[in-house]
Structures are given as C-alpha cells and as structure tokens.
C-alpha cells in the first residue's frame, strides 16, 4: 500500500509550499500537486507546479497534477486544460471539465474525491472514460467501498487502483461564495487573499462551543481531522492501493511515519492533532464528525 500526499488545500505562500514538499522528499510514494480549491489563488502558476512536479518525478516520486474542484470562469477552465496538456505527468480530475478534456485526449487519469462515484456502475463508467485510479467520496463508508469494488469486479470492470482519504481535515462542501472573504467583509473579487491568514482554515464553532467546521475560502472542511490508521488492515484486505494524507501545516513527518508503520503491520499511534480532534465516522458508516475507534489514532495491531 502506497502513501500519497494529497493536494495542499490551503493558501500557503510559495516558499512554504516548497518547504512543505522539501520536507517530504523521499519519504512518500506519490505527490498530488496544484490548486484545487480557488482559481484566484496563484502562489504557483501552472508552469511552476508542472516544474516542481518534474523535479519530484525525477527523484522517483509519482507525481499527479490535481485540477480545480469547482470551475466557474473560462480562465479557470483554461488552467485545467493547460494541466491536462502538460504532456508528461498524470492528472487528477476533480470536476467534469477535467474529465471531459482527459477523456477526449484518451489520457489515463485519477478520478478525484469530488466526482461522486458511489457504485460499481458509476466507477466502471469513469473507468471507460479513462480513469485508472479513483479516490472515493469522503462520505463513503468502508463497507460500501468493499461493495463498490465487488460490483466493479462483477460487472467485469478491470481492477482499478483505489486511494482512500485517510488523514486530514475533510473537504465537505464547495460554494460560489468565499466564506473567508465574507467573514472579513470583503468582496470575493477583491479578497486580499484573507484565507492566507489561516494556514489551516478558519474554525467555525457552534453556539454551544463545539468546534464544528472550518472555512477555507469557497471550501468548507470538517473541523475534525480524519484519521483512519485503525482501518489500514481492513483497507489492505479489500485491496486499497494507497492512502491519501491531506497536507496540514505541521507534523506531516509524524503522520507519514505512523501510516508507514501501520501499513507494515507494526503498532502505530498518532497524537497529531490531539485525539479529541480526530474523527473517523464516515469510514464506519456513521456521522462524519464522530469517532468510533476506541483508541483514536491507534492501529489495530497496537490494541
């Protein structure tokens, strides 16, 4: 089972982005690069992402270029097209603009978590369009994933690589509206990139004081940080080929190490973030914010 680093979902300065990838060079299998949340964020231009991807690929990493999840403007669609036309690196399609471009070019691609693939038939249709790997929707329970993969086999679909979002704040919703700009009473078109003030998003707390969600520009994330370490044996058994670890500003080396241990069948615990901030409800078929693993952050082998 491989370890993939998902695309950075936050608005970090270019230097921080480069530092982040430098810190993980040689320690993971796959890097997903690119801006997937907001078309206005251009700390790195498409050419710079492609250039960084080329560097990392030359060092032996698999590199995938991720595309925008909600494409509204023509300029955004042309960035998607530019990435699809890069000529060497594989692309992750996060909306059907990219799916369309890749299908038309006959290029194999990764179907991202926002494409709403919940059944074997939908997955087979995406496979026919050219997908060779997919990332199931955040809310898909482990049992359902097993079901989808079984259905794909029954339908005669070829085996497909499956990558599960296993760590990080979960992207839950996308909007035309930028909630970061709105909070700071700024128009979206003159946002001043206020989302950059919050390298891990802007927490939304209920009036009962329960931390609930996180605002990240046009994206709403879970406040709870997914941690599916305890599900690794299950995933291995059902043939999941990779885990996706979603970038956070710190401690990613610890996260990678913990998942590396769990994948190797060794005891692994993770206290980053603190267990009270971890959740795994989606995987167990429950409300996403809940936590079921009795010892949060602990792999089965350790219990």
């Amino acid at each position, binding site marked *: 089972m491989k370890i993939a680093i998902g695309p950075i979902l936050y608005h970090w300065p270019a230097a921080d982005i480069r530092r982040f990838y430098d810190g993980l060079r040689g320690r993971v299998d796959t890097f997903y690069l690119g801006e997937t949340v907001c078309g206005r964020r251009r700390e790195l231009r498409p050419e710079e992402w492609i250039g960084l991807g080329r560097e990392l690929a030359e060092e032996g990493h698999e590199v995938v270029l991720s595309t925008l999840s909600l494409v509204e403007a023509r300029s955004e669609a042309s960035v998607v097209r530019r990435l699809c036309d890069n000529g060497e690196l594989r692309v992750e399609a996060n909306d059907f603009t990219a799916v369309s471009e890749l299908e038309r070019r006959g290029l194999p691609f990764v179907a991202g978590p*926002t494409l709403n693939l919940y059944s074997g038939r939908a997955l087979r249709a995406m496979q026919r369009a050219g997908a060779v790997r997919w990332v199931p929707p955040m809310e898909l329970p482990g049992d359902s994933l097993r079901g989808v993969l079984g259905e794909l086999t029954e339908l005669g679909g070829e085996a497909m690589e499956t990558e599960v979002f296993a760590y990080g704040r979960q992207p839950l919703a996308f909007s035309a509206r930028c909630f970061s700009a709105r909070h700071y009473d700024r128009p979206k078109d003159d946002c001043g990139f206020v989302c950059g003030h919050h390298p891990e998003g802007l927490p939304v707390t209920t009036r009962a004081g329960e931390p609930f969600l996180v605002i990240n520009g046009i994206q709403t994330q879970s406040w709870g940080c997914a941690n599916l370490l305890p599900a690794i044996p299950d995933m291995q058994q059902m043939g999941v080929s990779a885990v996706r670890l979603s970038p956070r500003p710190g401690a990613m080396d610890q996260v990678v190490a913990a998942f590396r241990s769990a994948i190797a069948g060794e005891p692994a615990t993770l206290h980053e973030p603190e267990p009270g901030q971890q959740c795994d409800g989606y995987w167990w078929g429950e409300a996403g914010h809940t936590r079921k693993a009795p010892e949060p952050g602990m792999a089965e082998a350790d219990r």
Partner: protein
Amino acid sequence: MELLCPAGNLTALRAAVDNGADTVYIGFRDATNARHFPGLNFTPEQAARGVEHAHQRGVRVLVAVNSYVQAGGWAQWQRSIDEAARIGADAVIVADLGLLEYTAEQWPDLGLHLSVQASATTPEALDFYKRCYGVSRAVLPRVLSIQQVEALAGDTDVELEVFGFGSLCVMAEGRCLLSSYATGESPNTVGACSPAWAVQWQETPQGREARLGGLLIDRFAPDEPAGYPTICKGRYDVEGALEHAFESPTSLETAELLPRLKRAGIHAVKIEGRQRSPAYVGKVTRIWRQLIDRIPEAEGDYTPDPAQVAALREFSEGATTTLGPYERNWQ
C-alpha cells in the same frame, strides 16, 4: 422560455398544471431522488396519474432520479428509471454516471437531463455528458454569475435550465457533505439534506435551540422566526463573532434577470420547492407564468411588476430574497 414547476404530490402537480406550468417535475417516494422526505413524492401509480393529468393538458412531466446509486442499490435506482419510462414521463433528471449510461442504452427515447446534483458548470463538462450519454439538457448549479451563465449559454449546444425562485442551496449541489458530516445521511446518499429524524428542537432559558445530529445549528429568541435547521443557514461563532457564517435565511428570486436569461437562450426557468404545499406551488406558478409571459423583447431597463415581486417575497424564507450567485457581489 419554459416554466418548470415542482410537485411533491398529486395535488401540487394539479396546482402547477392548472396555474400555467409548461412542465412539472416530480420524484418517487424513495432514496432515488434528492428530495427524499417523509410524506413527500409519488408512488409509481400516483406518478402515472400525474402524467396522465398533465399530458391531457399539454404539460410535460419530468422525473428526478438524481441521488447517487449506492453500493448494493442498483436494482432500486434502475427501477426508478424504468418506472419513469413506463409511466410516460417526458424525461428523467439524472446525475449518476451509471444511471446515465443505463438510461441512454435502455431507454433511448426517454429524454435525459443532467441534474443540478452533477454540478456541471462549463462547456467542457456539458460536452462530456452529451458526447457520452446524449444528455440534451442540464440544470445549472447555483454557483455561476449572470455573466457566466450568459457566456456558458453561448458556448454550449446543450439546453440549459436555471433556478429562478425558491430555497437557495449555498453550496454547489452534489458537492456538499455537510448533512452527512452531522447525521450520516446526505442528498448524494439517501436524497436528504438535514433528515427530519436528526432534527431536534428544545426550549431553553437561552431560547429555542435547533440541533442536527446533536450539533447546535442555531438558537432563536422567543419572537424570532426559526427555519428548518440546515447547517448552511445556521449561526456560529467565527473568531468570536456570532454570524450566519455561510448564509442567512433568504430565498432566491430572479424575476429581474428574466430578459437577460431569455436573450442568452436559457431554455427553462426552474422553481424550487417539491417540499412546499400545493397552495404555494399554485400561487408561485401563477406569478411566474405572468412574469415569463411579459418578458419584454427589447433590451433596456426592465423592472418586473412590483406587486408580483412583493407577492413572491411573502413566500420567501425570512421574507427576504436575493439574486444569490447570479450577482457577483453575493459571491
């Protein structure tokens, strides 16, 4: 421009037909449509009667089968498509890739519309659905500005349908898991946002509290109107400020945009509200029939009839309306 009206039951369907709808859209009484609520929607028999009633009066009927097929659920979703075809529906409204493929192959004469739940926003995305499945029309998600809608209409040969009036989803449809994050169920999986079983009301000394899946979504003062608790319309603490962090209770109302939408070649205007009463559907349909029939041909300043706009406001959440994403400032 076609006026497309909602119906959550037969009485509402008749109200829409009798008050001037060109087309009515309905769903079956199960998780196969994205408005799956108790007491709402049609059995196949009721739907057949609705189609008969509508067709006798020259009105078309569309059936929404627009949630996503779940693992192990193929037979149920397939049945909904088959029933829609058998009762003579004019088209089905679909988002799921497997269902699009099935409908195109098995029911080639049945109209195939792309649901708003598929959240297709570009000529490229629309072209994919047309090229692969023969989709003839797409419902646009509520994320594009009016300028973007106009540009898109000029760049695609897929018919476009836009939301004109009713509740406003703040998040891109089909891209919102807030409901399942709180409750385990979402529009994509079981066809319900904020399922009724997960809603809890409680009178407290601080006010009336609305919870969803145990999470406090809002707290209302004694005289304050309290809407159905969806996460995106709740009040939260953000950096010490208490605010509607996503959207305040308001409804979409686009009467003033009608001439632009028509000139752009938008094929249909959709009224939201399958969960609304037959009386609401009848009144709103009647107003929109008049609004659409009176769209001026010439360009220039246009103000819709103030009396009709005021009447629409009466039907709106929080008695306020917005142009929503059509207006760039809202975004």
